[in-house]
């Protein structure tokens, strides 16, 4: 087990290295510079060079990259160009809170509701319940979440005045964005759970269990749900990523100072150090999420032995 995790950790470091290298060189291919382009375009070349020099942007790209990596290893992510002279790490710490809270809430609520709906649909297969649940799932997948966000904001926030229209000022302000984010998760999880449950319920071992005379509650909990969970777990990886990217639009609609909007903004304004910082953060989140899910497989299904270890 320890050895497995060590190998995985080594892979993670290698992956992150590749991602950061690619991002750095691709980013440098973007046209423009991090400065007020319109004004800069009007300045003579010497002045522009002078300003680039001030920030070390005239050095060869590989040289800039070596510098960046060196600083990164020392834990220094550099200063933002756009939010002039603020350390990238400070900005990320400031902004990650709202996004993390929204993401985690949406993940927990979305998964729970999705599971329940999916199970209902599977057990009441081809009934009214099944159709309603799947209609919800199809709508949830096909309608973009910013549409839900806008509707929630207009009706719940403005017309009924029940919850805040926008801003990040109290716990209430997290509710609408969480719902808007969670809808997509509900849809994905519900559909997957239903399909997997239907498949598992048709398996021989379920029949065997029934023949043994086990109570249907016992069968569902110990045999059906547990087996159906494995593929559902697999989709949670991509779901977490979609929560990160989805939060970008939701954050914008509800004016939440989160990290999703930071990512888009930094690319728009060529804020090199910020693009690197946020990309690395998202990559770290993603690779660790994959690792955690792999470890969870072993927990749910003891047959999946990660490295033949003795613990389980």
């Amino acid at each position, binding site marked *: *087990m320890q050895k497995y995790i060590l190998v995985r950790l080594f892979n993670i470091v290698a992956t992150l290295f590749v991602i950061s290298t690619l991002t750095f060189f691709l980013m440098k291919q*973007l*046209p*423009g*510079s991090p*400065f*007020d*382009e*319109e*004004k*800069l*375009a*009007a*300045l003579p070349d010497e002045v522009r060079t*002078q*300003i680039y020099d*001030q920030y070390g942007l005239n050095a060869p790209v590989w040289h800039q990259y070596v510098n960046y990596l060196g600083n990164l290893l020392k834990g220094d992510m550099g200063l933002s160009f*756009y*939010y*002039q*002279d*603020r350390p990238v790490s400070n*900005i990320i710490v*400031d902004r990650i*809170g*709202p996004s*993390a*809270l929204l993401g*985690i809430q949406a993940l927990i609520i979305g998964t729970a509701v999705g599971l329940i709906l999916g199970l209902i649909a599977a057990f009441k297969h081809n009934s009214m319940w099944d159709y309603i649940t799947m209609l919800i799932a199809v709508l949830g997948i096909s309608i973009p979440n910013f549409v839900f966000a*806008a509707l929630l*904001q*207009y009706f719940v*926030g*403005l017309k009924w*005045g*029940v*919850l*805040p*229209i*926008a*801003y*990040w*000022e*109290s*716990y*209430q*302000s997290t509710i609408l964005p969480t719902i808007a984010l969670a809808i997509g998760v509900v849809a994905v999880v519900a559909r997957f759970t239903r399909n997997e449950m239907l498949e598992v319920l048709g398996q021989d071992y379920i029949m065997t269990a029934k023949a043994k005379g086990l109570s249907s509650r016992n069968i569902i909990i110990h045999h059906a749900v547990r087996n159906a969970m494995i593929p559902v777990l697999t989709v949670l990886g991509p779901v977490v990523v979609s929560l990160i990217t989805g939060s970008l639009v939701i954050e*914008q*609609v509800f*004016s939440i*100072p989160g990290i999703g*909007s930071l990512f888009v*903004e930094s690319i*728009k304004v*060529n804020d090199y150090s910020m693009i690197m910082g946020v990309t690395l953060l998202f990559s770290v989140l993603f690779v660790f999420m994959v690792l*955690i899910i792999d*470890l969870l497989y*072993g*927990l749910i299904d003891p047959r999946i032995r990660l490295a033949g270890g003795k*613990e389980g």
Partner: protein
Amino acid sequence: MKKGLVVSFLLIVCLVLSACNSFSSKDASSGSGTEGTSGGSKKSDDTLNLYFDNDIPDLNPIKTTDSISFSVLGNVMEGLYRLDENNKPVPAMAKSVKVSDDGLTYTFTLRDGIKWSNGEPVTAQDFVDGWLLGMNPQTSGSYRFILTDYIVNGEEYTNGKVKADKVGVEAPDDKTFIVHIKKPTPYFLGLTTFEKYYPVNKAFFEKNKDDFGQSPDKLLYNGPYVLTDFNPASGVTLKKNDQYWDKANVNIPNIDIKVIKEASTALNLYNGGQLDYVNLSSEDVNNYKDKPEFGTQTNFRSYYVQFNLGDSVLKNKSLRQALQLSYDPSTLEKVILNNGSKAASGLIPPGMEGVDGKSFRDLQGDVIKPDVAKAKDLWKEGIKELGKTPKLQLLVSDDTVEKDTATFLQSQWKKNLGIDVELVTKPYSGRLDTMRAGDYQMAISAWGADYNDPMTYMDLWVSPATPFRGSFSNKEYDQLIKDAKSQSDDTKRMNELLKTEQILLKDEAVLAPLYYQGQAYLQNPKVKGLVFHPWGNPWDYKYATMD
């Protein structure tokens, strides 16, 4: 394994707890008591609620380069002069100025009783220090040209050729500040209202060098308001400055400005009574334009088509003129933009200073008037001169309004000249790069004024020719600009500038005018005197009142 689960669970709990602390400070302090009230924050009567449509990236006055930061700084700090409600410079930190006969030396006398928010007096030396920091390449940013272009030895100081004591700013005593400028500049007092011309308390700056302007306690204030809260991504709160010399004329005690990037969110908040002002996007204009709270304003920013004279096709003047005359900007204004922008018949925006109290636009009138019949003739003529029917491309930034404008031009040229123009769309900085490389035929471009004088535009097209400005070079044009820069007679100077616009647009057809940027908005009828300056530090809350 179990241990791992417990650890990750604890991690999640920590994250959630830390996230709960991320709510804006205003509510965090009153959190426990007021929880449970619905509909979020209720606005109080002494607070003006406003918003910006983007982040507030940088409140370091020496370095910052964006108009949102300029707006904030313009309300918490102040220069020698300040723009009044009608955009005219009036004495502020200075109580008077004496200008030498040759127009090259300005002697400002500072007002009595002017103080920083920490109680220290604002002195002439603070202006010397502020301006020098603004020209120092170590401390300043890409906007330093607005100082170095005017102050004697400014550029030399930036390039390290002279020491600070040779720069044309001096403070013989606490109340006297003397500036030597390179050339007579009729708009110089206007420049002193801009935030790059603000004083800086050097002792305070040196102490907070690394995070100057990054939080409310890392900046000193000498304007109508002080900053009480600042988060680049969520907004600022301002409180009336009780040390301000003119505090008797500042009416609103508190201003809360949020960052709202989504136009529909801002409109919902306005309709819910949580904002006192909202910008309208063009699709909302028709729903609201008959309401009493509807209004429009324009700023000094002109959009135009830049022709590239270095191109083998568009070096032909008849073709450029044909393209220029064959569409009607007023259709663009009414049908496509519909957002408060005004159709352009020239380059210089309306309201920009001319001479003797008249605006440049009033003096000049329309330079370009659409004339389809003439355009058709010119097009035929041009094709005859060229010897073939050319292929044309229009370069445009990847931005909704610009793309709509480009599509409008495309359809008009098709209809009136019978030609197919291909649109080339690039990201904003990609368009600038392409233009700099000269790899375009024509492009939709724009320029926002740095100061209230036509020179801020006309100076862009002087020799040497650059591809970015269409590789245009004209001896008569250059001479007129040169004369205007050393001219001390304001009327003669303005006549020279009027002539340059004629050359650039009418005689040489280097540009085709599109529109002067504007904004449609709704404003709470109880709020009066909310001033938007078309250049410099845009928003001014000093004159605002609330019933």
